[in-house]
């Protein structure tokens, strides 16, 4: 097989196919007799929750894993011993979530790493430079190819990663949640590239958990749940509701509790013209009232998380005040805010939420230990801590129950419950959740929503930041939509729907569009 590009005669055949593939990890089935065909000139969207088996499938395709049962066929030929290098030689190019770039090398060097053009035994710098420039231009990237990758933002690194994949032998492109860190403009450009590759007969596997992207890029869609292929459709022949039901295995109404609206006008948390020193948050005013769940929505880099982090004192505040329970704070810091009744549940579980190598008990009790009840004169009352933590672990149904287990051993959902457990060690006025359900399975997600609801029922206020539009729409009684560090709109009640939230997040606050279904049109209009 030396053909550089799949010709027109191959169009009806699949470039790559998985036939009845099963993959087990230590006896647990991650992928169960799944079959996939990738056809040239077509985009297959693979849709599924976290832990559905999407990554396993990708790893099988790129040769990082080998199937326990079933076969992988590339251009009709069964492949027995696949490895990543061979897969790449055969035209299977992937952009994974974990980047494969060497940070200290330049963009150009990264693009040609391991296959540098040579001249007289030396690297042909001029050619590397020129070809890298041409490759970047194709994606509309104007950045200097000599820039070290470490200097790039995550979105730019992602683009370089895509360019790198496109430099390989043409055939198949696998994109694993590529838009997670991209801005709308970059996303728009990515979709244009996908469309062009399609016309050049590339076969594209597009992995996502975002429903709206199915319609934007997909030709076919396949839903994966618990390692099984639940359903496959042609895009346009299936409703979003059906896809949701396939993905979560239950209707949405079961997943989300009824909305928690304010019980009084008393504001528990009030931020006034909050501006951070790094400029990511500018002049933001918001409030969270008693018994209310409030959402913050917006695009990546709109400053959503930063608002919560600034309120808690993790980002330096330049101007404005944060008021909690009637106490006004000029320069918030985590200690003060915790004392005043605010708790922040970070998005970055590894970096900020958990001491992974330490036990469940230590993690849950870490903050509460400061209280004289648990550690009079600085000496920990172990029995009391043990009892408190056990009660919380049972209430949250953390599994396994052994509280002396290091949290690194827990699944994502259970780790998130441990984070929540720390917040529950004592009653608070305001809970700030930063992406509470990222990387969390459906069961834990439902539990987290239920607990948010219970906290509000007890009179607390909840502010959550989420990039999951569906979550924002179904969970929040009020929504602040952010755009470029500012609050673009405040929505309440019936105003909260996906189309409106998206429109505001692009900075459009004019009259609503003609129909609510035309999210896509509005989005591309905003970006171009």
């Amino acid at each position, binding site marked *: 097989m030396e053909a550089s590009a799949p010709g027109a005669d191959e169009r009806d055949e699949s470039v790559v196919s998985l036939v009845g593939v099963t993959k*087990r*990890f*230590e*006896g*647990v*089935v*991650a*992928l*169960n007799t799944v079959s996939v065909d990738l056809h040239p000139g077509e985009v297959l969207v693979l849709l599924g929750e976290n*832990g559905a*088996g999407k990554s*396993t499938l990708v790893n099988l395709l790129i040769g990082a894993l080998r199937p326990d049962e079933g076969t992988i066929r590339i251009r009709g030929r069964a492949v027995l011993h696949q490895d990543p290098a061979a897969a790449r030689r055969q035209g299977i190019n992937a952009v994974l979530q974990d980047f494969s770039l060497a940070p200290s090398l330049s963009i150009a060097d990264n693009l040609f790493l391991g296959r540098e053009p040579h001249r007289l035994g030396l690297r042909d710098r001029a050619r590397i430079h020129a070809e890298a420039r041409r490759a970047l231009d194709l994606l509309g990237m104007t950045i200097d190819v000599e820039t070290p990758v470490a200097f790039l933002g995550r979105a730019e690194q992602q683009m370089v990663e895509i360019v790198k994949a496109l430099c390989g032998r043409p055939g198949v492109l696998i994109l694993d949640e590529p838009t997670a860190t991209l801005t709308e403009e970059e996303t728009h450009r990515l979709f244009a590239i996908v469309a062009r590759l399609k016309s050049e007969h590339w076969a594209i596997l597009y992995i996502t958990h975002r429903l709206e992207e199915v319609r934007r890029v997909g030709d076919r869609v396949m839903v994966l749940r*618990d*390692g*099984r292929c639940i359903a496959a459709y042609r895009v346009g022949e299936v409703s979003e509701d059906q896809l949701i039901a396939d993905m979560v295995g239950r209707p949405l109404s079961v997943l989300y509790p009824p909305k928690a609206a304010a019980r009084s006008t008393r504001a528990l948390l009030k931020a006034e013209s909050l501006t951070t020193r790094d400029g990511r948050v500018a002049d933001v005013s918001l409030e969270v009232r008693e018994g209310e769940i409030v959402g913050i929505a917006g695009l990546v880099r709109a400053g959503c998380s930063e608002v919560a982090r600034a309120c*808690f004192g*993790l980002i330096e505040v330049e101007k404005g005040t944060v008021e909690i329970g009637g106490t006004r704070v000029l320069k918030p810091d*985590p*200690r003060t805010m*915790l*004392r005043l009744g605010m708790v*922040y549940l*970070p998005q*970055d579980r*590894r*970096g*900020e*939420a*958990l*001491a*992974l*190598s*330490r036990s469940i008990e*230590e*993690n849950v*009790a*870490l*903050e509460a*230990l*400061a209280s004289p009840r648990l*550690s009079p004169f*600085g*000496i*920990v009352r*172990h029995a009391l801590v043990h009892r408190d933590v056990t009660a919380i672990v049972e209430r949250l149904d953390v*599994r*396994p129950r*052994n509280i*002396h287990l290091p949290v*690194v*051993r*827990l*699944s*994502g*959902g*259970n780790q998130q419950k441990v984070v929540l457990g*720390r917040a529950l060690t004592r009653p608070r006025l305001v809970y700030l959740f930063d992406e509470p359900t990222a990387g969390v*399975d*459906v*069961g834990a997600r439902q539990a987290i929503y239920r607990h948010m609801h219970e906290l509000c029922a007890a009179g607390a206020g909840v502010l959550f930041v989420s990039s999951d539009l569906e979550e924002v729409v179904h969970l929040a009684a009020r929504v602040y939509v952010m755009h470029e560090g500012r609050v673009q709109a405040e929505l309440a009640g019936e105003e909260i729907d996906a189309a409106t939230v998206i429109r505001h997040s692009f900075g459009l606050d004019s009259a609503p569009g003609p129909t609510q279904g035309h999210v896509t049109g509005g989005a591309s209009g905003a970006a171009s």
Partner: protein
Amino acid sequence: MPQAESQTRSPGLYLDFLRGIFVKVGALPFLLVVLVVLFSAANKYFLGMQNLVDMLHEGVFTALAALGQLFVLISGGFDLSIGANIALTSITSATVMSSMYSAYPHDPALAIAAGVIAVLIVGILVGLVNGIGVAYLEVNPFIVTLATASAFQGVTLLISQGQEVGGLPDAFVHGVGSGNWLGIPVAALIALPLILALYVLLSRARYGRYIFAIGSSPGAARVAGIRVPVQILLTYIICGLAAAIAGFLLTARVSAGEPLLGTEYTLTSITAAVIGGASLRGGEGSVGGTLLGVVFVIFLSNGMDLMGLSANHEMIALGAALIFAVVIDRQRARAVAAGFRKRLAVDSVRDPEDSGPGAAHP
């Protein structure tokens, strides 16, 4: 603290039990058995009473230095200035004591008390310098303590002009240095309450929980409302004090202030702590494990002494032991990770609702 590893032990598999010990405390128990067998076969005095007491006396200095190092390691740091600290303390305290003693020759207690104060001041100052560099200036602890080690060494040589400082009170040299009570060296009796205090601080006090959390994830500690820089500063002060006290006791042992005293303790303290289960990645370690690590280091050097091998050979062996300890540390991290994967699989099968990564049901 009951550990989870023992619960998943497959029945009837003795190997799994041994692996459990390995994961929990490392290879140390196995190595100690090997050393004892080897050295007592080579020399019948190795396990003799007199040699055991000698080893206890030697072990006191190493134990204090290693426990200080342990606190720093747990918080995710590193202290390369322990040896220089010991020398600085030795010279400073000896200088203070000898001048006090010559001024008030009839009151040796006064001289010793002044020496103790000098020790505490030096220990706290050393800890402050290191701690401020690491916690507030946010310089890599390796660089900070490498630099301060050089600076402390320079101060020591400036004060002493490279000369020994003698003329110490008899009560100090013969009481603290070589005295014993009921056969137990006085130095060990002085160190014992300090070691106990460190144990309580690490295992029973809130502070211990804090530095474990900081070593494991500084960001998480900050979000939990812990004042991370203050706690890190405290670990360096504790380490500085522990090493300074070791230097003081060592000065009594050699009966003079010496400008090159204790340089080997930087290496032995790290070796003992790491081989005793402290992780160079921070967030792990224990007083008990470290004391076992001290026993290992002492056995090794004393046993080689008895075999007639020189101090030069010991240096080679200790260097090798440190590399070995780090390799073992990494192996243990892998063993823990392997146990993690196994356990996750077991849990997922057991709890169908708990769908962790790849938790589909067969």
